[in-house]
């Protein structure tokens, strides 16, 4: 039985397609947009803007490549029902095709095994070029204790899920976006993870070190509140939202302010 030897690729022909976030400031901040062919994680506390960004990506992926889109449908897998339909309906982008909702596939996932099964049974003919999992953390909340054995099997599931996602990302030239929650840090040492401040709490991404090895890009969304003295001498409360690149293969660590306004997420430059 003759086996086919593996063939190397020439990096000169390996252009990374990027999906626009719908805002030129945010695109530039992320080195062009969300890369296809790898996993980008959006991590932050509740209401940090993760789902909002995901919904925006569902629409921007329908744009033509000339506008930074992928001209393709997307798959949105949600683990915390219900699917945020109302918020999606409030979003809009110029140059969208008619009936954009027809091009968005939506599936619930109830557990990590459920997600794995869902990913394994996706038909190859499904032409999605954006897969979103919102959120990965909710799939692991109650199933595992902290025994070494459970942590090991949980860790093994992380790598299985990541492998399936990266496989799809590569075969379909798809962007994969996964949202994750945060947990508080109590010790002085954060261990392997860099911690950030959000809403006055020192936090690290949930799911630990093993999961952090499964994503290629980690973007941390934070919120902070402070008092600012305005020009007429009055003190007013200012809420700042920031997006931080924690690690990325195509962009240095940096942060950028953003805002959530009625029609979407915008960078503040």
């Amino acid at each position: 039985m003759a086996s086919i030897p593996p063939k190397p690729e020439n990096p000169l022909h390996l252009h990374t397609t990027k999906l626009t976030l719908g805002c030129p400031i945010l695109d530039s901040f992320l080195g062009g947009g969300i890369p296809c062919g790898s996993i980008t994680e959006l991590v932050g506390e509740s209401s940090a803007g993760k789902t909002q960004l995901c919904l925006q990506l569902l629409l921007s992926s329908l744009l033509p490549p000339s506008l930074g889109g992928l001209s393709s449908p997307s798959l949105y897998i949600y683990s915390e029902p219900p699917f945020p339909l109302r918020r999606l309906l409030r979003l809009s982008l110029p140059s969208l095709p008619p009936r954009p909702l027809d091009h968005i596939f939506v599936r619930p996932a109830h557990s990590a095994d459920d997600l794995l099964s869902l990913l394994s049974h996706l038909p190859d003919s499904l032409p999605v070029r954006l897969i979103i999992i919102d959120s990965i953390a909710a799939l692991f909340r109650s199933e595992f204790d902290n025994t070494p054995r459970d942590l090991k099997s949980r860790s093994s599931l992380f790598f299985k899920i990541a492998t399936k996602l990266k496989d799809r990302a590569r075969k379909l030239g798809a962007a994969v976006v996964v949202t994750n929650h945060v947990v508080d840090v109590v010790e002085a040492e954060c261990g392997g993870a860099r911690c950030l401040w959000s809403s006055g709490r020192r936090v690290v991404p949930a799911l630990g070190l093993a999961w952090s090895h499964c994503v290629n890009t980690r973007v941390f969304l934070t919120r902070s509140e402070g008092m600012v003295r305005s020009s007429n001498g009055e003190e007013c409360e200012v809420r700042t939202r920031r997006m931080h690149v924690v690690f990325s293969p195509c962009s240095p660590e940096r942060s950028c302010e953003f805002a959530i306004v009625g029609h979407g997420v915008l960078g503040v430059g």
Partner: protein
Amino acid sequence: MLSEEQALRHISTGSGDLDSILGGGIHCKEVTEIGGVPGIGKTQLGIQLAINVQIPYDFGGLGGKAIYIDTEGSFMAERAYQIAEASILDTFDNFGCQLKEIPEKLKAESFLANIFYFRICSYTEQIALINYLDQFLVEHKDVKIVIIDSVTFHFRQDFDDLALRTRVLGGMSQKLMNLAKKFSLSVVLMNQVTTKFTEGSFHLTLALGDSWSHSCTNRVILYWNGNDRYAYLDKSPYLRPASVHFSVTGKGIRDATSQCKRVRMM
């Protein structure tokens, strides 16, 4: 004859300080493991080495080609291009050459084309490719570095039988060591970290278990010290342990620019 002289040369990491604790850079005929947390710079260092191995012999390099085995999908060609451009410019700056003297074959495009890139999606693919390398290297004798980024990813699932995993890893590391010696090239393996519970608390340790730690000639651990990146030479047959501050810049891996950089000998 040239091959023997080539093999005595080291592959620069891009940071003179890091090169110096490594005894000049990454060595041929040896397997070097590089471990660290996500984002510390393993892939960046891997790409830098895949570029720097190509620095021409006349400019102090090996003039070799690279094999880059990507198991995680973090290799970005655009970043490799950026690193190549900077490395070529810095090399020529060091030798006092004017830009217009750079020959066509030493443009960044050529450097990218000299990287044999393999994307691996399972551990069986990984083993199959490593088994195939012997034949590939016979046909491509100018390859002077094989990078696997990371060697770990596909081994952190599907192995309920840890003894089997240890055997498979052992066989793989033996093959890689043999390739390094037979073809006088360097093998660089990126590894992940995990937490191990010993003596009542959790410690960060390299993945793949205790038996794996014997598989490499040299081991370098990349770690954070506050907001600074450090490299620690943890294992070497003849060099003392030492740590050094380095940085990841737009140009690639470089010396740390802060005034308080230091090389600390242990």
